[in-house]
């Protein structure tokens, strides 16, 4: 099973699409590793430039409808090869979310109000996430300030995370 802890990159925009996560010009690659330098190449955020430093961050917290557009699994892969195994958002596009769990990664939804609070409290600061899979609890911490939030994950998604993805699961079961 992958781990879901680390420093957080806050992306303050809704509807970030998979062309922005990994542009089509890199889809000619046939290894996941080759995508590593190109994560978020074409991302344009409204009116601000976050430190898009993907090397030191391993968690993304963002707004609604993350991962919309193309079905390319290159988007989760580009995250994976940058050691980012979890995205927390208000909501996801269906294919992206499924792709994440299919790779044994996590795409977790939190209420808009919780996401708002996380942005207000932690955005721009060095914040760390610790995930407790047993208790289904996130711990956000930054300079002594903590916030605990429980999260929901379906049994199926949990089984995929445990099995390390859908290929292993399906090959065992079908």
């Amino acid at each position, binding site marked *: 099973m992958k781990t879901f802890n680390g420093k957080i990159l806050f992306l303050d925009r809704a*509807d970030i*699409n998979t*062309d*922005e996560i990994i*542009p*089509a*010009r890199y*889809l*000619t*690659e*046939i*290894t*996941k590793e080759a995508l590593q330098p190109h994560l978020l190449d*074409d991302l*344009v955020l409204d009116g601000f430039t976050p430190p898009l430093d993907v090397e030191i961050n391993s968690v993304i917290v963002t707004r*609604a*409808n993350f991962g*919309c*557009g*193309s*079905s*390319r*699994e290159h988007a*989760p*892969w580009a995250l994976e090869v940058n050691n980012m195994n979890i995205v927390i958002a208000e*909501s*996801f*596009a*269906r*294919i*992206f979310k*499924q*792709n994440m769990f*299919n*790779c044994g990664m996590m795409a977790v939804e939190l209420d808009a109000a919780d996401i708002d609070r996380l942005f207000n409290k932690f955005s721009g600061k060095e914040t760390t996430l610790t995930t407790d899979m047993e208790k289904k609890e996130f711990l956000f911490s930054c300079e002594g300030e903590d916030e605990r939030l429980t999260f929901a994950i*379906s*049994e*199926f998604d949990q*089984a995929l995370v445990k099995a390390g*993805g*859908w*290929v292993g699961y*399906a*090959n065992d*079961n*079908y």
Partner: protein
Amino acid sequence: MGKTIAEKIFDSHLVDNPFGDIHVIRLDAVFCHEITTPVAINDLAERGLDKVFDPEKIKAVIDHVTPAKDSKTAMQGKILRDWADRNSIRDFFDIGKNGVCHAIFPEKGFVRPGYSLIMGDSHTCTHGAFGAFAAGVGTTDLEVGILKGVCAFHYPESIKIEIKGKLPEGVYAKDVILTIIGRLGVNGATNKVIEFCGEVVDSMSMEARMTLCNMAIEAGGTCGICAPDMTTVDYLWNFISDEFGSKEEALEKYSEFTADEDATYTDTLIIDANELVPVTTFGFKPDQVKPISEMTGEKVDQVYIGSCTNGRIEDLRVAAQILKGRKIKEGLRGIVSPASPAIYSNALDEGIIKIFMEAGFCVTNPTCGACLGMSNGVLAEGEICASTTNRNFNGRMGKGGTVHLMSPASAAATALNGLITNSELYRKGDK
């Protein structure tokens, strides 16, 4: 309780219900192209599982970048080609026979009412036009589909969109679906199937229904679906005449996959076609839609007519009608890409290719090409393209480029004028 089309398909394809509302369903077809399949092929090989569940149910095409433009795309094609060969996949479409996946597969009769199918491509929702459940998936789902012939989905909820009345002149399926996306928003149909119905859909050709269903994903939808009817049967007749004594018999069988009167929908949207106008997009999201009249006069550098949305013969006919005997604006680049060899060849026979060429268009081979900014018309930084494709994402057709989505009629008018233009101007014949 009554059922929607998608519910009927799910119930007739159930393999397993491992958790909650997760349904693992049997697939009637798995479609593959050279961009998303090679990683699945390599992964299967690495796992020692280099096989396919049924070579007859797998259809593959090289379409996104073809002919290959460099060593990397050549290798993607080669991986798919070698794999198709060693797994005896007969329906493999390589150069000379290839076209855009969502144009060529329906044309070959590979989609039937009541089918369930997946492809590693988000616009797989196009095939729902035949009364099928067709979903775009990622490479892992595709890989399992290839290996096992199954895929897992949440049990489908549907939104019903009824389009009443009659489309005004100059308003096409593309305007209808863009208007709908504008209303639903880019995630208005996430995790839902969009069932299209009403007089307008009933009177639409299969081509127009495909345009409609093609963009369901742009509202987040899993699939767009139109109920099968005589139009569907007519389109498929060449492929199904052996199975049925008459068209009526085929229709009766396929009617199994129409929605029940008392089916449940999470939402119903009623659109009055009489009020629709030609539209286009602004900004970088497909739900940012405005009447063409409000964008008129914006300068464009390139016009692109093609893609799985609007690269079919009907689309080329409409554009050619407007272009006939006229020339595109000096300095503007016009590119047309017929979506399949059959479409290309029909367009040649009908004199459409000549019209495009005389108007000053470049005619490319059937391919996705510029639609996703990979070849055949990539935009330069700061350039603007009026396009019949389906995505106006930032950088979609080239880094720093802007795309305005519109119908083939509006695109042709825009090409003539060099500015975003309503096709009305040319239909009246006053220019």
